[in-house]
């Protein structure tokens, strides 16, 4: 195939533009992950390690802390992601109405939490959810509860605090994605649906949601990855407590590597567990969202 000078120039330029990023990714992403895979078969502490075969995986199976971290992470994922996605969708649909007053204001306010640093808002929430804190006082005043909830010292409520915190922080972010996607929808489709006699709830489920499917999938996968990697909040609000009730996989890896005498091989193994979980879940989500129609 004869390559014209133009073709060659295209190729050279093509690689030139992407090369810096690719090199960096190669060094800081691909190499580490492969190293990590290799390391997961090594046992030993610190700089002394030797090949251990599947020893690390065996250790995983018997590691109570690991199981707890895994369970907690999953609980956070299963509960928090759907709540947040639904809320973000509802907000976006509500804000997409051009006849709504204060639209811009609402949108800004709802997005504002996304501007905070994870640490900043973690400190904030820690101060709000103390036993005599403002949250308990508000709930008591509104007669929603009879006695103050021991938010940070109860395993169940600690998880609730984390879930509330994450939802507060990230819903606005997903909302912006949905809003942007909704703006791209031809308004006349909704008008046609109104004329067709399609009621509002059906317009939402049969038109809005299917049309937003790509964006919803994108945000769900992003949220999945984010929640499965949960670290900052649990490290700052609860430190994984009480009694590891809010220990997540990332926090566990961090503890293994930097707080205890590091066994890099084992940390790497746990890291790869996360990689596999994320890959599997993303794959499942992709499959669910895929068009199941047979092309004609």
């Amino acid at each position: 195939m004869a390559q014209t000078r133009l073709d060659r120039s295209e190729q050279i330029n093509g690689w030139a533009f992407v090369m810096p990023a690719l090199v960096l990714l190669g060094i800081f992403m691909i190499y580490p992950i492969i190293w990590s895979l290799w390391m997961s078969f090594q046992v030993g502490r610190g700089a002394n390690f030797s090949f251990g075969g599947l020893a690390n995986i065996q250790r995983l199976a018997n590691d109570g802390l690991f199981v707890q971290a895994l369970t907690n992470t999953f609980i956070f994922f299963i509960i928090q992601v759907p709540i947040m996605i639904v809320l973000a969708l509802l907000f976006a649909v509500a804000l997409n109405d051009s006849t709504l007053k204060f639209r811009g204001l609402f949108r800004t306010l709802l997005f504002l939490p996304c501007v905070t640093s994870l640490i900043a808002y973690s400190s904030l929430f820690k101060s709000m959810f103390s036993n005599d804190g403002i949250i308990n006082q508000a709930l008591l005043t509104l007669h929603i509860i009879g006695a103050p909830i021991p938010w940070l010292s109860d395993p169940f409520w600690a998880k609730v605090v984390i879930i509330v915190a994450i939802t507060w922080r990230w819903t606005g972010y997903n909302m912006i994605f949905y809003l942007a996607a909704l703006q791209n929808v031809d308004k006349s489709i909704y008008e046609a649906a109104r004329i067709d006699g399609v009621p509002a709830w059906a317009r939402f489920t049969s038109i809005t949601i299917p049309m937003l499917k790509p964006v919803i999938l994108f945000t769900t996968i992003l949220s999945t990855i984010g929640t499965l990697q949960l670290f900052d909040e649990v490290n700052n609000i609860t430190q994984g407590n009480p009694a590891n009730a809010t220990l997540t996989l990332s926090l566990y890896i961090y503890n293994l590597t930097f707080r205890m005498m590091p066994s890099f091989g084992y940390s790497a193994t746990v890291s790869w567990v996360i990689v596999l979980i994320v890959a599997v879940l993303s794959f499942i989500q992709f499959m669910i969202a895929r068009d199941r129609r047979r092309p004609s």
Partner: protein
Amino acid sequence: MSFALLRRGGVYLFLSVAAFLSVFPFYWMAVGATNKSIDITTGQLSPGSNLVANFQSLAAQVDLVRIFGNSFLLAIVSTILTLAVSSIAGYGFEIFRSRVRERVFQLLLLLLSIPFAALMVPLFVMISRASLTNTFTAVILPTIASIFIIFYFRQATKAFPGELRDAARVDGLKEWQIFLFVYLPTMRSTYAAATIIVFMNAWNNYLWPLIVLQTPENKTITLVISALTAAYAPDFGVILLATVMATLPTLVIFFVLQRQFVQGMLGAVK
């Protein structure tokens, strides 16, 4: 007719409650900065008179100028480099298509699902071996090539009119000149949105700097706040004041670039 009105009212109520819940912590943060720690944990809603005391306490514990300087330096350098590297990659993937590069791009999308938790151990080992612990270089380098930003710029470039590039080529511009003098000025709102995202990320970055930066004078404000919060008896007045100071830059940038941000997001979701 009245059902529609009821529903409209319900929507306003729903949004108002959500907006209130979204904004309340900011008020709390601002008020808390002026109160004593004990008042904060007992839920005082009104401003106090402890602002100066809190500030003095904070300044005594932390070299504020140095720490904020660190955060700013890291964030700004990070933002510039990330935008540079990732935007030319996104542009390159979209404008110069080839089968091989498409495969590479798809591989990149797969890499997106690798969690940082899986990388932090080997990355740490790598930088220790290179004697780069506690350096800003080590903090910035792994983050410059951001797959998310590459993806974002590639999407945004789809809306860049091919004719502009053709006209520039006819005019005799070389490819890098086209990127600098034709593409960059046209894609301002995309860059604005990306700047907000990248700056915020860099400013708020926690885990990796936590791992890399060891000495107190190298820490960022994020790390400082975290340390203060993890203390046995945290002084929330001081902490919230630090939080206010740490949140202000991102708030300012957000408000200044808000419109471009939304426009930029709109452009990416096509």
